[in-house]
């Protein structure tokens, strides 16, 4: 079926940038696109929209793009749905790539939905697994649904491009290789400022103390209801600080107001994949597991030996966290001081 549709054999990755800084999810997508491309002998192309973004091309080529489609225009200075959707729609319609991948970020989801509507094609949200089906060359797009209880594999058979947003921190970043070259294709946008219905008045970065870089943290020390009070999170902060990590929390903790929302890990919070994830007093509801089960090493401490968290834990400890945590903190602190 797929070969009847007149498309360009390319996989496009939308390169998401804000204030000339590229979102890490774009590198993950370039890595994944490269893997998929080898199955269908396609080219990997980045698509970059923005203002004053030409200098970003080098890193995009270094991260493995064969080509880069770029619209550099003042009208694209800030992300706005209307201008970005218009620009991306125009070039997608012109070249009609086989596949377009975007990060399942706030911007990626906002933009992908708008563009897919104009292209009248299928869009699969928040994929965690992508595969090319050998016999049909179709993109198998797998994603969690129903609160993470179910996985669904979605196909877009008769419409092009096949579009998907991909959950951040699920795929590995493409490793940069310096000095890589690629083909730059400059495009223009026809929309004029007078036609744009929105204006960005301001951007307010989160307060410093609210900035929690959970997605990029190598170590996360997370607590759940078992911590019993807000005060006990001090122990987690202490351990996190020693390990150069961040403090995470399960949803009940957020709902009880012990920790602010940016710390929430799980289906309705953040998806993380640190090297080390400590789960203290977290029972392991599916919604929480959905957000952290890709962590490299998981340590779980819970007094209930049947807690679901032990089903995903690399190392489980059944016991009283109020006795265990101080000892762990002590052991880690001694280890760290001998290393210095």
């Amino acid at each position: 079926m797929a070969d009847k549709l007149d498309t360009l054999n390319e996989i496009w990755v939308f390169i998401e940038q804000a204030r000339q800084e590229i979102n890490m999810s774009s590198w993950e997508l370039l890595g994944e696109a490269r893997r998929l491309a080898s199955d269908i002998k396609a080219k990997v192309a980045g698509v970059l929209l923005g203002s004053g973004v030409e200098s970003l091309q080098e890193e995009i080529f270094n991260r493995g793009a064969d080509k880069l489609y770029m619209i550099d225009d003042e009208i694209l200075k800030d992300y706005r749905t209307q201008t970005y959707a218009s620009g991306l729609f125009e070039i997608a319609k012109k070249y009609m790539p086989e596949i377009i991948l975007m990060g399942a970020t706030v911007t990626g989801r906002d933009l992908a939905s708008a563009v897919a509507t104009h292209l009248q094609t299928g869009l699969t949200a928040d994929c965690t697994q992508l595969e090319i089906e050998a016999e049909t060359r179709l993109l198998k797009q797998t994603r969690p649904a129903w609160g993470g209880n179910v996985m669904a594999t979605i196909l877009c058979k008769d419409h092009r491009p096949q579009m998907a947003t991909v959950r951040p921190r699920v795929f590995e970043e493409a490793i940069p290789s310096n000095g890589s070259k690629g083909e730059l294709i400059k495009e223009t946008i026809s929309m004029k400022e007078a036609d744009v219905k929105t204006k960005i008045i301001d951007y307010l970065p989160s307060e410093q103390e609210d900035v929690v870089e959970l997605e990029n943290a190598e170590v996360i020390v997370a607590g759940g209801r078992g911590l019993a009070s807000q005060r006990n999170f001090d122990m987690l902060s202490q351990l996190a600080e020693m390990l150069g990590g961040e403090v995470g929390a399960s949803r009940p903790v957020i709902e009880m107001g012990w920790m602010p929302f940016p710390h929430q890990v799980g289906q309705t919070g953040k998806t993380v994949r640190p090297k080390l994830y400590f789960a203290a007093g977290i029972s392991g509801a599916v919604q929480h597991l959905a957000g952290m089960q890709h962590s490299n090493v998981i340590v779980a401490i819970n007094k209930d030996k049947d807690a679901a968290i032990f089903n995903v834990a690399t190392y489980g400890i059944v016991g009283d966290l109020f006795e265990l945590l101080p000892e762990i903190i002590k052991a880690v602190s001694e280890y760290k001081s001998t290393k210095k």
Partner: protein
Amino acid sequence: MIECNIDILKKDIANKRLDMHIVVCIKQVPDTTQARIDPKTNTLIREGMPTIVNPYDLHALEEGVRIKEEYGGKVTVLTMGPPQAKDAIREGISHGCDEGILLTDRAFAGSDTLATSYVLSEAIKRVDLDEKVDLVICGKQSIDGDTAQVGPGIAQRLDLSQLTYVIKVRSIDLKKNSMIVERQLEDGRQIVEARMPALMTVVKEINETRYSSLSNLIKAAKYEPAVWNQEVLGLDTTKIGLKGSPTTVRKIFAPPPREAGEIINNEGESSKEVAEKLLKLLIEKEVI
């Protein structure tokens, strides 16, 4: 003297009240915390699964009613679903909506997000013909599909200003047909001024939902929403239901469980011994 008062009055009306018409789109969803898969057939066990109004949509309803209370006007609640989704409309009425419309037809079944946004946008067009729509509000996403695609789909089809992940409505100026909102991004807030009509999707933090008043509950219990089916709407049949959906589900399955490791402590071991054992393992794995 009299003239002067009239002027003030006129100005007051112009500034404050025109009749604002808000449409809130909601979805009846299964309570996904109870979703299970039959391991033999790999199909969803739907039996006995209770339905609720999508939690994000409750905040959309609340925001619609709050805007109505501040600026005047009315709120129409809209849902697409099976006949029993009438209950969702009634819940909307109990939260303070003035009117409700249920879009239901076998021909709509199996619609993906593209087809769903088509049905909803055509229904909103019809509502708009009767009474001009200034603002459409949706929850940021549903908890069963989790796509966040239908709201934007409606905005694009109707050429509305698209405002997703709204955490605060700062102001609405009906005279200028413009509104200012705050959007919640990963690392901060974007303040956007948008021309109306607009569509916004809201996050939970935008408001606290209130309890329904007794009078609204009584009104809701007796409320019979308008029911629009394919005959009423006369939609392009190639754009609805399974046929109108570019995406198809190849298969569904239970998520593969992560391989569990080991419980590292034994009974009778002291916390100190366990902590040291853990430290050794973590050093071996090179994660600290």
